[in-house]
């Protein structure tokens, strides 16, 4: 299913309509569920989500874009972060926000 989800996208990140229509017409209901989950994973893998609080979108977006070449960037504001930035690329989350630091601190203290 992972391979089918990967084939659904063209190298440019567009949807390959032939593959998508074949999948939709041939997959059973239970298989469609797995296909949907695989598509979501693939989208997460291809797209980098950048949440930021402070700084300008173009500034941060440019810096992150250099770090993840060839990936589609989705930059949005999240004031809940306090300050800083949180980047989600596939399964990896890099959290450089004040809220993230405080959460980590709270976790350490509660373990003590």
């Amino acid at each position, binding site marked *: 299913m992972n391979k089918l989800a990967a084939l659904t996208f063209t190298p440019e990140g567009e949807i390959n309509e032939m593959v998508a229509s074949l999948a939709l017409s041939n997959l059973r209901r239970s298989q469609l569920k797995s296909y949907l989950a695989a598509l979501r994973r693939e989208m997460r893998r291809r797209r980098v989500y950048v949440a930021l609080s402070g700084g300008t979108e173009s500034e941060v977006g440019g810096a992150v874009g250099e770090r993840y070449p060839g990936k589609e960037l989705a930059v949005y504001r999240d004031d809940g972060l306090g300050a800083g930035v949180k980047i989600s690329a596939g399964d990896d989350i*890099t959290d*450089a926000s004040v809220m993230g630091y405080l959460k980590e601190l709270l976790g350490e203290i509660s373990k003590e």
Partner: protein
Amino acid sequence: MKAEDLVRQIEEKLLGAEVRPSVANVGHVVSVGDGIIRADGLSRAGYGELVELSDGRLGLVMSLDEDFASILLLSEDSKVPEGMELKTTGTLLSLRVSDDLFGRVIDPFGGSLDGRPLSVTNYTAVPLERIAPGVTQRAPVEVPLKTGIKVVDALTPIGRGQRQLIVGDRNTGKTALVVDTIINQRSRDLDLPQVVCVYCAIGQKRGSIARTVAKLAEERAMGYTIVVAASSSTPAAMQYLAPFAACAIGEYFMEKGLDALVVYDDLSKHAWAYRQLSLLLRRPAGREAYPGDIFYLHSRLLERAAKLSKAKGGGSLTALPIIETQAGDISAYIPTNVISITDGQIYLETDLFNAGQRPAVNAGLSVSRVGGKAQSKSFRQVSGLMRLELAQYQSLAAFSQFGSDLDEATQKRINRGKRIVEILKQPQFSPLGDLEQVISIHAAGSGLLDDVPLEKIAEFESRVMDHLNTSHPDLCRKIKGGARMDDATVNELNEAVAAFAKTVR
């Protein structure tokens, strides 16, 4: 922790705050059932790694498929919503161990189960799963681990660092035997160092565990004992991890140069718990529905028992696994597996137990492959003779019912055998010291009790030590050291015991 300490700790953290980005590999719960989480993502998770759920609970990665990771939920509360985020921690499951654990009953994660708060200070975090010491790190098993049980110390002696299986049907005295062994470590026979004991209860009823703990406390054995318990009402994951936690505690003391004893009571239930987990993890079922790696599960656990070389501190970890058989079948899957892993077995038989022979050890099917070298010289001297007499008696015992047709020599041998069997009987919770055992076994094995009526053997045994201690203190002192007895000592002992035996006829 005091409020001031907490405030200071936070202040220190904030002052020295260096906001470094945290990097996490995350996944999301796809489905949950029977304590098993299936999660997508977690592309960097490793087998055996701990993962943390967003509410702080922990899970253990048990298998990694192309699309999903199967995770064992390490919590009794199994309410996990679909879509919940979890992240890798980069750490293995570990336990905090220190001397504070003595006298305590804990779960496999180190939580208190005895109703008292537990604070482990100056601890070392030891991983539950570790690779066993290598060949070059080990030394031969040469120091005895005295059980205080005559039949075991004489016929299947156990050495420090050995793995000795205790196998038998239910209600044959398996737990009683290990509890006696733990109690016996209270006395320091032959000037040997103290043994640290870890009793691991797996899949037992809470009442049974409480009874065992109460008995150990009553016999003042909890001072050097730690109990790790995962009762039958705990999730299979806890029962699966319990023996690994007990082993990790034992290893901690072994690496400190001490001698540790770990009792696994019992590995049959451990195998059941692992079978349950494996079936839930959808691993292919093999013989008796156990997974293919059931042998490796027990071999990697028991292989961690070792006697370390002097360069490694000289500590030891002795393992006494227990296996419960069904209808006396020791050729079943799990018993044969564990028999082949261990250095010997003590087989307890229902028929012997019902006939009043307690401990109900079947001398023919019990064996110790390495413990013989660990016996004291005096003990080896007397037990060798007794073993021979017992073997001859067992081969002749079938004819004993036709007593009138037997020649005098055979009749005599059978009579002696009966006295040996009688002397090997021992009540529960009354382990004996080396000296008492040497004298009893010598008396029976060398024929000094041939004229003592069978029903008087117990009386003889209960009184002979007092008699020898008062009338022959020098002789007792000579034997107590454990050195081989010379002819003069043997003659003196024979004369003293024979004279006393006449008084109990």
